[in-house]
């Protein structure tokens, strides 16, 4: 039966995202970075990293089939040591613009001694509080039993 109405969604909310990127890069190589949004995204995006010498590196991430994730495999081989900052602006499928998101990435400048101290402290923490630690170079996940 024919209908006398239509449904239209009016979306005026900007998308929000979570950036999944390493905070520390010891070996300057390719790193996977994903940007996960709360709604479907347009391919339009502004993704760039400003390195420790204030040089801007622009990227175009691929929009995953789920439409909510932007994916990039970023080479840090030519990055100078020091703190770089990843900046992200995304647009949802009706072009609402997100706020400017940022994440700091420490590139090739890890104080190995301090890093080992962090590991040691975590191991002490693990023994003392009986928690399980999964360690993976830069990302550390703590799971409470």
């Amino acid at each position, binding site marked *: 039966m*024919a*209908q*006398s*109405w*239509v*449904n*239209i*969604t*009016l*979306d*005026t*909310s900007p998308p929000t995202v979570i950036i999944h990127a390493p905070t520390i890069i010891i070996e300057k190589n390719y790193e996977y970075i994903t940007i996960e949004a709360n709604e479907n995204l347009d391919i339009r995006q502004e993704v760039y990293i400003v390195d420790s010498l204030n040089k801007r590196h622009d990227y175009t991430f691929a929009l995953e089939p789920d439409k909510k994730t932007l994916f990039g495999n970023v080479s840090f081989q030519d990055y100078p040591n020091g703190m770089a900052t990843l900046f992200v602006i995304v647009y*949802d*499928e*009706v*072009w*609402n*613009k997100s706020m400017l998101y940022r994440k700091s990435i420490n590139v090739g400048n890890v104080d190995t001694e301090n890093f080992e101290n962090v590991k040691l402290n975590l191991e002490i923490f693990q023994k003392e509080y009986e928690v399980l630690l999964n360690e993976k170079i830069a990302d550390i996940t703590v799971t409470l039993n």
Partner: protein
Amino acid sequence: MANNYVTITLDTTAPANPSVLIDGGSQYATDTLVDLTIGTDDVNTTEYQMKIWGSVDTTFDVNVQGTEEASSWITYTTGKQIRISEVEEQKTISIKIRDEVFNESAIVSDTIIYDATKPQVTVNAPDKPKISKITGRNVSNFSFTADVPFEEYLVKVVNSAGATNDLGTQILTTNGSVNTGGTGTFDTSTAPIQVTINGTDLEVANGGSGDNIVIKVFVRDVAGNWSA
């Protein structure tokens, strides 16, 4: 002093220029209850009577029946509500008036077309089911047709698909929406009406953003029936 004579008035003049209008002379009735406006040029209508008959619901008023013979004389009044019969067709109502000495006027009649059928509207799917207020993504288009010609239409934001024409908020054209309402003579049998909805106009009508906002089209046919 006693009179040795009497005076008698012989009145042989019928009530002048009797008239009747159904619903003020409307061409169409969308309800079976209609109002008669009855008149005569006679200034003094004290003790006048009238008789009404025609295409009526004979159960509504025993004095108002299908034929002159079956109807009864009732006290003259300039306004009278009757109920016409249910069949959708042209109705004829006749009356005559008589004065206090039963001089009867000529019979006068009026007709009206009873049409209670609501027009049917068909709205086609929008080209963009989701929009924003951002230029380039702020417009959705759809078209609609009706099964009969119509004289007015409204495009409204309503709470539910079952809403009637007196509910909801019309989408205005302030920010670029097109064909969200109009009056005139419309016949969509050859070409549908193209509607453009702008996000800002939609936001105003809806009172904010929202998922699956129901936008409904209503048309009013020549008889005055609004689509459901």
